[in-house]
């Protein structure tokens, strides 16, 4: 991928960009940094900001009318804007070092004449003099300041200007009226800013002669040819500016940098050129959400005149320091790495071009810690999906074989298991029977159930009972397979796409049915990568056809207290309906409905808004026909008498996403803990992975299917191995029912080993993605190969097994026992300990 393509993903990100106030400021003063420093009293620093941006800080402070205030974001919460005029005044008063900086650069030979020593001419003169051009100023009066001469602060202005000029060399010619441009023909460039008595550019266009300026006829002619983009005229080397051209004094000073640059480019190239504006484009102004900020009124100076130091600090502290940090603050992963999006993009790209061991990657941890949940995109004001960056980095590294293989080793094996050993297809009835004769088929749609690889692993009933319903009522087929996302998350794009081809083949062979998804992430993968395949959420189908469900009694006792629904991260992506009523509802926290008093008649614990969301905004409802998965689950709950509450922050991943466990266990634990402690109440989930993740940390949690189907909870897979066995069990039962005989997976010689694993070890194994079959294989192979150590005093053995990406170690005791199943004497292995590592010792076997 090209660098530009990667950087384009974060192009719109405005983190670090100048905020709205800086856009409005004619000088684009970095107001955010100014206020940040002013809050802690760094007066000398902010004086420098002022001097560097405002050119004549005393003048500008006094005459600027504060356009920044109109774009200040404090008024968004009802407060007055930051008082920059008074803060600048405080900076001028309290700064102790106002020494201008002398630039030591070699002198230039070009000469520039400035006509008019008002602030317009002076600011351009200063800039060119700083660059060591030979600047000569011609002023018809005997002093500087032009139209500011009569200002009440003229003295302070003069002092300020003299201070700035004190470190440059510039020739001043007072009492020198220029009658014609011809007088200045010896100069390489001329800038005329003579001001205008009526301050009106329009007047000069009307050809009025002004008797004060004998230059006016010539000047009028020049003005007619004025090009305001380059401040130039038809006459080469002659530039105009200031009030002469209708600009305000403030604008003239602000433009001086641009004008000086145009003149310089003319002097260097013979053509006036301008730099393209990149930073301060109007489309990059963004107002942020400050609704959580505290209101603070504007500070009023106690002496009615100027802020004291403390008052100034206090006023500056009112600045929000506007900068978008939504994704950085709300996503645990982004917060933990604290890299701005633009940097992440650059590093993501750089990592795809790394060649170890000469160069190394920068972004490994972040890339493999992403849940790929799209939450950042959901909250980003400009819809940036940082997960896309990480996906690029991952697949880029896989292409050059630099990814840490250990991270996804388990998950890829898991994917292989689900797509091969545990995979199974039952075509839909409709394919063979034509018009479906199954009862309840409302449309002649052919359906095929795609439960996803994890649903059945948790409990075979989730798949079997669900499939029973779909088979009975729709003649639905079934696909037991993985959607391929483990390959995608591992960065294995080739593998992922070839798997998608397999799935497409299955779908085609089945007659292109509508797929019914038991997992929202599977659904997301299909909608994104196989959009031609029609899909529907299983839960939407059930909600649309409530008669399909067994007549259950009230489930209000299923939980210890009123539960909340935890929507899986992919449900947000899949939400197709544009029901604004629903969206507005989900934004409310539970027990805090946004309906006004006369709309809502509910009490605090029986909020009817949640029960019947459309009641709040009925006239805005543009609901589509299909019930979204989110709405469906809520409807299913309400049908059985459960009124679930809503959690505050929706759309975040439970922690499972991206298979980041294995890459960043610390962050994984933190994320899961945050999710389960977000609300003190039990959760209803409708994703098998949310279920496993939350239950493993002891959260009271049920799958929606636990509530609406008759699920035998004793079949729940307690540990990883049980879960794998459940997947096989489902296939075995279905194949038997189908008359395809007794399915068994090919046996390994170590399958028959009897292990006794204590609870602590089992928990360790589940947390580290170790199956009991891994231990069996280790022991079996070690006993054969001799890869073992023994401890004679404790009578334990320590076996190890080297696999490509992991090395298992198992410490065990061996006892002889009768194996009831095989009716032989065999060994029983009591597991004392198990652990693993990833680096390989290079064995040098001695003869």
């Amino acid at each position, binding site marked *: 991928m090209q660098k530009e393509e990667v950087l384009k993903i974060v192009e719109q990100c405005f983190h670090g960009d100048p905020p709205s106030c800086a856009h409005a400021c004619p000088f684009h003063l970095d107001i955010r940094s100014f206020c940040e420093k002013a809050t802690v009293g760094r007066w000398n620093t902010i004086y420098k900001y002022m001097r560097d941006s405002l050119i004549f800080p005393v003048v500008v402070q006094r005459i600027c009318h504060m356009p920044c205030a109109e774009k200040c974001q404090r008024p968004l919460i009802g407060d007055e804007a930051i008082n920059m005029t008074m803060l600048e005044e405080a900076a001028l008063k309290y700064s102790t070092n106002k020494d201008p900086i002398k630039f030591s650069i070699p002198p230039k030979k070009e000469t520039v004449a400035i006509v008019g020593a008002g602030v317009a001419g002076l600011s351009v003169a200063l800039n060119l003099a700083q660059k060591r051009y030979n600047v000569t100023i011609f002023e018809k009066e005997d002093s500087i300041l032009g139209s500011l001469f009569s200002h009440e602060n003229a003295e302070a202005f003069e002092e300020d200007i003299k201070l700035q000029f004190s470190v440059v060399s510039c020739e001043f010619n007072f009492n020198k009226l220029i009658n014609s441009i011809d007088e200045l023909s010896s100069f390489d460039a001329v800038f005329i800013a003579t001001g205008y008595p009526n301050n009106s550019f329009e007047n000069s266009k009307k050809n009025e002669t002004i008797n004060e300026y004998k230059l006016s006829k010539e000047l009028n002619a020049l003005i007619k040819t004025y090009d305001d983009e380059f401040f130039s005229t038809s006459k080469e080397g002659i530039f105009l500016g200031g009030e002469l051209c209708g600009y305000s004094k403030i604008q003239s000073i602000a433009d001086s940098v641009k004008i000086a640059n145009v003149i310089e480019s003319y002097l260097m190239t013979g053509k006036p050129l301008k730099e393209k504006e990149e930073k301060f484009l109007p489309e990059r102004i963004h107002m942020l959400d400050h609704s959580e900020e505290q209101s603070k009124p504007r500070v009023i100076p106690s002496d009615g005149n100027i802020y004291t130091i403390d008052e100034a600090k206090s006023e500056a502290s009112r600045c929000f320091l506007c900068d978008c940090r939504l994704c950085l603050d709300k996503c645990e992963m982004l917060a933990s790495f604290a890299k701005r999006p633009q940097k992440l993009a650059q590093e993501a790209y750089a990592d795809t071009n790394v060649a*170890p*061991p000469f160069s*190394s*990657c920068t972004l*490994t*941890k972040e890339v493999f810690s992403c849940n790929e949940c799209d939450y950042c995109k959901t909250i980003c004001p400009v819809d940036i999906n940082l997960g896309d960056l990480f996906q690029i980095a991952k697949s880029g590294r896989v292409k050059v074989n*630099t990814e*840490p293989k*250990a*991270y996804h080793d388990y998950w890829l094996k898991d994917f292989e298991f689900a797509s091969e050993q545990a995979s199974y297809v039952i075509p839909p009835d409709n394919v063979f029977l034509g018009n479906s004769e199954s009862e309840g088929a409302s449309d002649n749609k052919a359906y095929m159930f795609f439960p996803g690889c994890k649903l059945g692993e948790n409990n075979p009933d989730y798949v079997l009972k669900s499939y029973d319903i779909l088979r009975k009522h729709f003649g639905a087929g079934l696909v037991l397979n993985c959607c391929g996302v483990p390959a995608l998350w591992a960065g294995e794009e080739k593998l992922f796409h070839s798997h998608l081809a397999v799935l497409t083949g299955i779908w085609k062979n089945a007659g292109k049915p509508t797929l019914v998804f038991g997992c929202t992430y599977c659904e997301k993968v299909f909608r994104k990568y196989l959009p031609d395949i029609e899909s529907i959420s299983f839960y939407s189908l059930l909600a649309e056809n409530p008669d399909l469900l067994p007549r259950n009694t009230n489930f209000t006792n299923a939980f210890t207290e009123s539960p909340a629904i935890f929507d899986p991260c992919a449900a947000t992506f899949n939400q197709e309906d544009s029901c604004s009523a629903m969206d507005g509802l989900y934004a409310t926290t539970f027990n805090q409905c946004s309906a006004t008093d006369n709309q809502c008649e509910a009490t605090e614990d029986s909020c009817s808004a949640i029960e019947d969301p459309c009641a709040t905004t009925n006239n805005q409802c543009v609901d589509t026909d299909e019930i979204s998965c989110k709405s469906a689950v809520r409807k299913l709950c309400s049908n059985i008498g459960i009124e679930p509450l809503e959690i505050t922050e929706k759309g975040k991943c439970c922690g499972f996403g991206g298979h980041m466990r294995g*890459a960043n266990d610390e962050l994984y634990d933190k994320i899961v803990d945050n999710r389960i402690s977000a609300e003190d109440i039990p959760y209803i989930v409708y994703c098998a992975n949310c279920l496993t993740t939350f239950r493993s940390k002891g959260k009271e949690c049920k799958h929606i299917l636990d509530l609406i189907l008759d699920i035998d909870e004793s079949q729940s897979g307690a540990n990883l191995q049980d879960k794998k066995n459940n997947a096989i069990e489902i296939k075995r039962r279905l194949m038997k029912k189908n008359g395809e005989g007794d399915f068994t997976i090919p046996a390994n010689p170590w399958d028959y080993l009897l292990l006794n694993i204590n609870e602590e070890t089992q928990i360790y194994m589940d947390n580290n993605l170790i199956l009991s079959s891994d231990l069996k294989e280790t022991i079996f192979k070690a006993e054969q190969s*001799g*890869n*073992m*150590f*023994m*401890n*004679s*005093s*404790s009578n334990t*053995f*320590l076996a*190890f097994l080297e696999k490509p990406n992991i*090395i298992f*170690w198992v*410490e065990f005791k061996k006892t002889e026992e009768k194996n009831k199943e095989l009716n032989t004497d065999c060994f029983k292995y009591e597991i004392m*300990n198990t*652990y*693993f*590592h*990833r*680096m*390989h*010792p*290079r*064995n*040098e*076997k*001695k003869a």
Partner: protein
Amino acid sequence: MINGVDMTNQDYSDWKCSTCEIALESKKTVFEYMKRSFSHEVLCCPNCGKVFIPKALAEGRMAEVEKLLEEK
């Protein structure tokens, strides 16, 4: 000493290579991970060269180094 763990103390002196049935000796061994290699002193069978890696080492120093290398 490896990461503060005295490899010659009572904890590991009872361990022997199961095939050679002799005591283990500390030896500088080369390890490889993520296309980089480095050496470390670990207990090995002086006869067949089998490397003995106790849990403390695997979950301590080794895990630390693996993490560092993975992040490169």
